[in-house]
């Protein structure tokens, strides 16, 4: 089948991919779920392996190895592998110090997130009221998470220590030379080079991306909002309350409004992402085709004209556009003066018109990028394809629909997917053009969102102006789920002919 696939023309390949995606969707979903037990079994095997290794170290280890169960790195130091041994030992000491003086007192409070936030005490001597801050729920949650991360790292290090000690013992027993400190250093430029390269990037990633994401997922299960704001107040675990509120199952009328808002914002987010991605893509391609057309002179000049607009920082063009198109902006004023219109066109203040304006301005911003991408690829389409199409009597439109578009779609799918995901989370365009306005209403109730708000800008508003942190986190989690599901489907399509094992 693979061979047949390779023999197809790009057009047929695309059609094949497209068809097979929908044909295989149920089968693949089933396969995905069927694979779960197998994956779990594999995971279990990995775990079991860890315990087998530890057991072996306990059984076969001499006293030096066994002692390093408690004193990390002891066996290594005793066998003169000083550097490694000392690193393990130092790590253990630092870990213990951290837990005793810092980590532990936060970890024990994780269950309650604090008991007393503030106490006001009147000093009996002077009679002055003094405020003491005790538990800060936010810091308790943050630091207990950090502590959990560090504990995980410690467990990993401890396991490596046990394994390493046993290994060095086996080396000695087999009368083989142990790697010296110098060898260790050398290995970090060779077989362990990935550790040297990746440790710093991954540390940053862990502290500034992974830890915060975990933190915000936990926040979704608390009642952290305007009325529960540390340090003056505590917040507490609230189970799935926030999720229920967002989905409209809450008791209060607020919940209904909120669920309605969520639905509206979600719908617009998806409509926006689809329109923004495909209008830019197709129009950009058309511009690229025009510039690439045989006989057009000064190709470089045309391209440069468009590329210059990429270089002007996006925020400048967006803010400038928002000013030009506002109700008292230059465009309206000029049109009024010339008598073309009687009253200002609400480019950015009428819901539907604002949506259209945003999409059009986005086209203006985005076409140069997609034009650049397309130009390179268009040149790779074999000319004889067009030639044979012309002989068969196909006009330019037909040739475009049957050759250019399928070929481009086939080659640029990864780009399209990243664009689509980027647009789902496109903050700048919306925030700088309309700020999400005009406000969205439900039967006269003002909601927290605007008619042009995307999930991401709504999230910003909920956090920065409304201080509804718990609900904002739920929205964030939903956004993630939507993006993840959509990209899983799309990525799956671009890989649909590959091995099913690589589904995940």
């Amino acid at each position, binding site marked *: 089948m693979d061979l047949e696939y390779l023999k197809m023309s790009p057009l047929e390949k695309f059609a094949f991919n497209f068809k097979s995606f929908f044909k295989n969707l149920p089968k693949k979903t089933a396969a995905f779920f069927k694979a779960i037990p197998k994956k779990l079994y594999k995971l279990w095997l990995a775990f079991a392996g860890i315990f087998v290794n530890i057991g072996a170290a306990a059984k076969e280890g001499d006293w030096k190895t066994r002692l390093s169960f408690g004193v990390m790195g002891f066996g290594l130091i005793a066998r003169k592998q000083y550097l490694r041994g000392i690193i393990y030992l130092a790590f253990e000491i630092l870990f213990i110090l951290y837990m005793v003086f810092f980590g532990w007192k936060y970890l024990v409070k994780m269950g309650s997130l604090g008991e007393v936030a503030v106490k006001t005490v009147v000093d009996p001597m002077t009679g002055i009221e003094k405020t003491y801050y005790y538990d800060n729920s936010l810091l308790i949650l943050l630091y207990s998470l950090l502590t959990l991360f560090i504990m995980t790292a410690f467990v990993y290090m401890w396991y490596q220590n046990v394994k390493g000690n046993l290994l060095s013992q086996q080396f000695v027993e087999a009368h083989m030379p142990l790697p010296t400190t110098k060898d260790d250093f050398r290995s970090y430029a060779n*077989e362990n080079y990935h550790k040297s390269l990746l440790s710093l990037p991954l540390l*940053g990633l862990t502290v500034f991306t992974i830890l915060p994401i975990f933190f915000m997922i936990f926040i979704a299960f608390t009642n952290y909002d305007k009325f529960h704001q540390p340090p003056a107040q505590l917040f507490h675990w609230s189970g799935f309350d926030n999720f229920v509120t967002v989905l409209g199952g809450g008791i209060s009328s607020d919940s209904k409004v909120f669920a309605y808002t969520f639905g509206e914002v979600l719908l617009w987010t998806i409509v926006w992402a689809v329109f923004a991605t495909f209008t830019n893509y197709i129009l950009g391609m058309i511009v690229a085709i*025009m510039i690439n057309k045989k006989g057009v002179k000064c190709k470089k000049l045309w391209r440069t004209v468009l590329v210059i607009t990429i270089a*002007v920082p996006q925020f400048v063009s967006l803010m400038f556009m928002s000013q030009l198109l506002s109700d*008292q902006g*230059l465009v309206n*004023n000029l049109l009024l003066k010339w008598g073309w219109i009687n009253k200002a066109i609400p480019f950015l203040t009428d819901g539907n018109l604002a949506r259209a304006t945003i999409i059009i301005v986005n086209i203006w911003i985005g076409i140069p990028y997609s034009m650049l991408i397309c130009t390179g690829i268009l040149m790779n389409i074999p000319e004889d394809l067009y030639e044979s199409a012309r002989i068969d009597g196909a006009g330019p439109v037909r040739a475009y629909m049957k050759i250019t578009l399928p070929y481009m779609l086939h080659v640029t799918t990864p780009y399209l997917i990243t664009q689509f995901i980027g647009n789902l989370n496109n903050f700048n365009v919306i925030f700088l053009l309309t700020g999400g306005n005009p406000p969205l209403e439900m039967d006269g109730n003002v909601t927290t969102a605007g008619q042009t708000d995307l999930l991401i800008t709504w999230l910003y508003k909920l956090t920065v102006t409304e201080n509804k942190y718990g609900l904002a*986190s739920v929205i964030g989690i939903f*956004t993630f789920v939507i*993006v993840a599901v959509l990209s899983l489907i799309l990525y799956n399509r671009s890989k649909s002919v590959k091995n099913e094992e690589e589904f995940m």
Partner: protein
Amino acid sequence: MEKKKYKSKKLSERISLVMVYAFLIIISLIWLIPFLVLIILSFRGEQVGISADYLFPKHWSFGNYIKLFTKTKFLRWYGNTMLVSVVVTIIQTVIVLMTSYALSRLRFKLRKPLMNLMLILGMFPGFLSMTAVYFVLKELNLTQNLFGLILVFTASSAMQYYICKGFFDTIPKSLDEAARIDGASRHTVFLKIILPLAKPIIIYTILTAFIAPWGEFMFSSFMLKGDDDKFTVAVGMKSWLDNSTLMAEGYFTVFCAAAVVVSIPITALFIWLQRYYVEGITGGSVKG
């Protein structure tokens, strides 16, 4: 008969060519006119609010530019942004290159899981983690601080490995192997063989890293809120637009002047390095 047909074909081709030129000219105008308007407005000498109903200034003057540099904090913001940009560019380029090389050339157990992890992390809305990052930085006393902003911008640079890794993948592996046989360490291979060949992608990384802080708004405004000595240009200029008294005083034209000043160096840089940008964007982000 034959000749006539040939001629008519020529004619239709000519017509279509004329139409293409017309299309291109219109497109170019649509793309350039807003920027021309921006430049023209920045030279408007008279102080009218946003409600002016004419384009060309009644008095051409450099007043807005003079005001920009003497009466506002713009120069300071410009310096802030430049500082952040330069430092972010250096750190980010190093991190991206290291990550890409490791993921492209080295084979280790967690390579695939790591790539999947970064793919998944990229799907979380970045702002979601902002509150947590904010409190971490607050504990470190780094909010309303440019160093904190640099930390936020660079800490997760590893996730931008994708395009650069794509480029490294295209460099033939036989080069590495030959050097390894000659006794070079992995480290030497990276520094002496791969990096010199990766010039286009390094320039692409530098260019994108340098431009990003100029346009970034979401994180910067959240981090720097309240201290206008620390603003970046994006945050500062937005603060003018949000201030209706300033707008009534004719700050719109000052805004235009600021926009021109911000755009000039980046545009120059861009035109200079355009070739690499195009190579990077088409080479790394697209695969058959």
